[in-house]
């Protein structure tokens, strides 16, 4: 088949001259283009001031070319940022300032909602890399700023804002450093508008230090190996990535695929569900993700702009399915086309509330992957727990006498596949190497204690292969404070595939000092001394019918406490005697009933899609 190729990333078309650089040098340059962002990632961890950056690692580091195309990104950078967050900021800067006005020694910052389409806390800083007067690219560092104003401490944490101006200030392409000189008026603007100046101004220094050190290291390798060799290495990186994605797409069954799921609500209109309909097409070595049928933008903060929403979700799914094992670069997405009309909740218009811009993405990514399950059966996985599960605490800390705020997200079970039980607990598919802040550190910084952090038995979706387990954390409140939660996917729990069942959904329950209980998924509450909060993440979906799971595996799950004896009988049809011994005849009987029930269609998914 001879098909015209549409390359999103250009190849060096100097076919007449053979490759100028020897293979070892090219390999070294390629490795260093990735090694430098990785080293800067460690520098930022080591010089940051807020646990959100140095433990939770909510940041990204990378190199983009003069047009904002991604060359390399550090290993720990979150998947949600592969959505060209770094390049988008650069493109905004180019359109506002022009390349010629971004000078040597400048550091430009941006978080503008219109371009980035992600919550305002995500601020990108970038600095031009020039060698012998030629612009080679930009070294860029995105850091989640701990607070940037807005209606609640932490800025992006509210589950009920209705416009972006309630969510913090915007910094639409401002020079923080100009030709090496700090612009004190911008620093002053930022320092005045944050609730946590000590943490934020320190983190900004780490961000700037990373930007500048990365730029210097890049300039050193370019000077050493030459501009031509570095450009050649970059084009090879892109070409190789694009070629491998294209190969996978050409081998897959061609066609149009569809899937849908549901988000609970938008945080404001609590009784209005938000449907997620996606169409995906594989044809001629290209992947099209079509969001035309996606729900319109919502009133509450569960929106994102086009770049931070639709493009991000499509790119993450594309990377998971087509090129999981290589470092991220623009070539991975050269074969991806995203169709999205204006005004969906992933392409929200000016002014839309976007505080929770990433929260919907894991569900959208899972839905795209569900649609493509038929095209890639051996890569298909049941749904993972599927939410960020933001739960944050804020108030006055009696130890320091100062305001505190702690942002956390959940780790839960991942989906089973044809080959194995679901792994986990891990954070969502929009997170990567995002570690929990240690309990011992939280207890020093915040006026609560964690009295349990344990697996939730029976939370994994039953199946021939079982979904991974969710986690329950229990907080004991030692001083009055407030909590905001933004949970979802209770109406459409993490689904199973191939006959597997869904995992248990996530949830939050407050147990008051007087014994009263309240379950909630979104909202803000005051907490008092003696209250406790149970934060539960969901389990992953199962794969294949549960009554086909090997009895040995079920018995082992019961022995290890992953599955209760009741659930083993009820959900898997594996009956144990009171002493825990396997009862083979009761099991056969129970499983026969389950098979029969299945045939007449009693069992079906909770989530209609």
């Amino acid at each position, binding site marked *: 088949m001879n098909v015209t190729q549409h390359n999103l990333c250009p190849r060096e078309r100097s076919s007449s001259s053979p490759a100028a650089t020897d293979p*070892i040098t090219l390999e070294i340059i390629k490795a260093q283009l990735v090694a430098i962002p990785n080293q800067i990632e460690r520098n930022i961890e*080591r010089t940051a001031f807020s646990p959100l950056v140095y433990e939770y690692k909510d940041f990204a580091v990378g190199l983009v070319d003069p047009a904002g195309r991604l060359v390399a990104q550090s290993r720990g950078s979150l998947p949600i940022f592969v959505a060209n967050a770094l390049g988008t900021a650069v493109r905004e800067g180019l359109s506002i300032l022009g390349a010629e006005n971004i000078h040597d020694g400048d550091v430009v910052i941006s978080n503008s909602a219109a371009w980035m389409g992600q919550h305002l806390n995500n601020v990108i800083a970038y600095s031009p890399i020039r060698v012998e007067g030629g612009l080679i690219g930009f070294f860029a560092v995105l850091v989640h700023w701990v607070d940037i104003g807005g209606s609640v401490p932490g800025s992006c944490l509210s589950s009920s804002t209705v416009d972006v101006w309630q969510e913090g200030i915007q910094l639409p392409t401002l020079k923080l450093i100009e030709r090496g000189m700090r612009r004190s008026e911008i620093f002053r603007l930022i320092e005045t508008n944050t609730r946590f100046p000590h943490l934020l101004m320190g983190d900004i220094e780490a961000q700037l230090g990373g930007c500048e*050190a990365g730029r210097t290291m890049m300039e050193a390798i370019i000077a050493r190996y030459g501009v031509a060799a570095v450009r050649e290495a970059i084009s090879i990186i892109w070409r190789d990535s694009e070629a491998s994605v294209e190969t996978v797409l050409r081998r897959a069954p061609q066609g149009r695929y569809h899937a849908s799921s549901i988000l609970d609500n938008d945080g404001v209109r609590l009784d209005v569900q938000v449907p997620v309909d996606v169409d995906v097409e594989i044809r001629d070595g290209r992947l099209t993700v079509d969001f035309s049928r996606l729900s319109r933008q919502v009133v509450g903060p569960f929106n994102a702009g086009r770049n931070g929403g639709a493009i991000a979700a499509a790119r993450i799914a594309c990377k998971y399915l087509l090129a999981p094992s290589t470092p*991220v670069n623009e070539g991975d997405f050269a074969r991806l086309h995203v169709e999205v009309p204006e005004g969906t909740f992933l392409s929200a218009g000016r002014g839309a509330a976007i505080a929770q811009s990433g929260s919907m993405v894991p569900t959208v990514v899972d839905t795209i992957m569900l649609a493509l399950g038929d095209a890639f059966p051996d890569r298909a996985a049941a749904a993972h727990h599927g939410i960020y599960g933001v739960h944050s605490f804020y108030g006055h800390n009696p130890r320091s006498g100062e305001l505190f705020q702690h942002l956390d997200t959940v780790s839960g079970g991942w989906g089973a596949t044809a080959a194995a039980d679901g*792994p986990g607990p891990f954070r969502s598919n929009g997170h990567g190497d995002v570690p929990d802040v240690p309990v011992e550190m939280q207890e020093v910084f915040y006026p609560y204690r964690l009295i349990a952090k344990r697996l939730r038995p029976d939370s994994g979706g039953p199946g021939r292969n079982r979904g991974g387990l969710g986690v329950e954390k229990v907080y004991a409140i030692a001083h009055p404070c407030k909590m905001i939660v933004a949970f979802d996917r209770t109406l459409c729990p993490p689904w199973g595939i191939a006959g597997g069942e869904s995992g248990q959904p996530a949830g939050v329950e407050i147990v008051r000092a007087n014994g009263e209980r309240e379950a909630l998924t979104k909202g803000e509450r005051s907490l008092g001394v003696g209250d406790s909060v149970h934060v539960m993440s969901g389990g992953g979906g199962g794969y294949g019918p549960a009554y086909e799971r090997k009895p040995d595996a079920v018995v082992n799950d019961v022995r290890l406490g992953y599955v209760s004896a009741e659930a083993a009988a009820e959900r898997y049809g594996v009956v144990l005697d009171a002493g825990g011994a396997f009862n083979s005849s009761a099991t056969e009987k129970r499983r026969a009933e389950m098979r029969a029930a299945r045939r007449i269609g009693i069992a079906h998914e909770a989530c209609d899609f």
Partner: protein
Amino acid sequence: MQRKSRYLIAVDTGGTFTDLAVYDARTSKTFFGKTLTNYEDLVAGVIECLRDAGTDLSGARLLKHGTTHVINGFIQRTGARVALVTTVGFRDILEIARGSRPVPFDLGYRRAPPLVTRDLCFEVGERITCDGDVERPLDVTALERLIPELRRCGVESIAISFVNSYRNSTHERKAKEILQRLLPNLFVTTGSELSMEWGEYERTSTVAANAYVGHRMRSYIRDFEKKLRERDFSGSLYMMASNGGVMSGSQAIAHPVALLESGPVGGCIGTGAYASALKLDRLIAFDMGGTTAKCALVEHGRFDVQTTYYVGGYEHGFPIRAPVLDIVEVGAGGGSIGWLDSQGRLKLGPRSAGSEPGPICFGRGGTEPTITDASLVLGRIGSENFLNGRLALNRERAAHAIEQQLAAPLGYSGSAGVDQVAHGLLELAVVAMTAAIKEITIQRGRDVRDFALCAFGGGGPMFGAQLARELGIPTVIVPPNPGAFSSLGMLVANARRDFMRIFIQALSDESLTRAMGVVAEIEEEAREAARSEFDVSVLTFEREVELRYRGQKHTVRVRLPENPTAASMLAGFEAGYRSRYGRVHPELVAEMIALRVGALVPMPQPDLSQLSESKAYGETRPTRRRSVYFAEAGKRVDTPIFDRSALPVGFELNGPAIIEEYSATTVLGPPDRLLVGTLGELRITCARP
């Protein structure tokens, strides 16, 4: 009687060979030995080596021992059946880890399973607050109620880890005391014994790992020492630790994870010694033994020590909080087995024939062809001179096995076909080893071509020049007695104990005075420990302060001089901070976080210039000639064979050539050039590819 003992002995037990170095303090001479590792009786191998060196254990003042047992225990998962006892609410701490996925886009990503399965994780009531106060006393009754269950489960070791024990370890100590008393044969260990840093997951992972290897290592070290005593050893036994120093046997029994990379560290210390003596700033220490090949960087005489080591790698493995040198290891050694996969493709390793049964050519029952067999067939090693002729190698049998098992099924015939397949096996080893060297250099942001390669171990000198040529490394150094080089490094190692105190105060002249008071206390404690552990009280100290800007988590270590001032310490901190991160912040408060004291017990050491037998004059003609297959030539070449011990300093030679000695064979490719250096080291200048 200790004064009469004249020998210092270092023994490195690898998967295939036991290497030994003996320093005679009376004559300042050093001897080397090498035998196959005897798993039944490790000390027997030591005795055999000593006999070669013309001595025995009765004259030994001390014996330093390095072993791969700890790391192998983790890799092969052959450790103890461990129970974990945690604070109520936290039994799943190992399984939950920290919720992150270091490989971001792999849907099938999972961590290596925890060392303790969930049914052996137990909770007891107790709680220490983050200030170190007891909020809930240890529930002793609940702890005692676990005893029958622990017995029933056949637990061999117990790891105890409580939340906030880094602030107050009394509950952990009390729980240990109770469990140890009721279960006297079990190995019981606590998190706070091993790490006093915060971070409950990393500390729990460390103590679980310590319990996992502790049970076996305790028997191993006790047994090893008992056998030494039975053979008239009256000196002290020291174990080689991963931090580059040695520790006493009793300390090693309590803290076996400190022995994690006990074997390879010796080679790095040795490489560092040669790097300093030869004034080479950047060296790759490359060690190819019987089972694996390992590499590490030695820059400016020092090797990098990580404070948190991930067994099995950061991406999938588990953390251990212990100082460990930064090393990359691949399963390519002389014993690595060549085989055909189900599609009939030639594969190498990771299985190794080890010392039992060993390569086919050893004639000790090995039936599968190995790298050593292929090297013998190709003429790269000789059949008579292996281990000074103590082990005659059977070339015919090796060639026959390669022909039958590999060449014929692959469609190669005749001796040329056997050569081609044998050469293919070596190429597979080269691919694996170049990948390891790239990982330790290029992937750490270094240009591999800025380094020289220090090749040692039984196989290192055979492959060094070829690897260097592949990677564009200009120079290879082969030290004297490369096959026993790790044991030489251990001989050079001092005893080292590291002490740390949390000390959080803003930097000022007054706080520094207080800090020096604490340092003096630590040093007294160190002297006390050294008296009981090493029977000496004269120590040298390396004093450091960890500094950071107030509010940061990570620190920069700054050396603490005798009479420090706040200004000089701040200058040192800023210099370190600037070199790492490119900037400083004079407006921020610099504070001290921790005081560290490394206590070194200096030990008598061999003089490197005495190690080589090379003299100013010597025999420069080849001892004989042999037909050797060279990849560079693509065929067999009639090649001169030299005896290394006869070659004089300053001798120069063009390849191809083979240089033989007791413990190793150096292969000089056709385009390479050799010079015998001033310390008797072989310097190979590699031609550009």
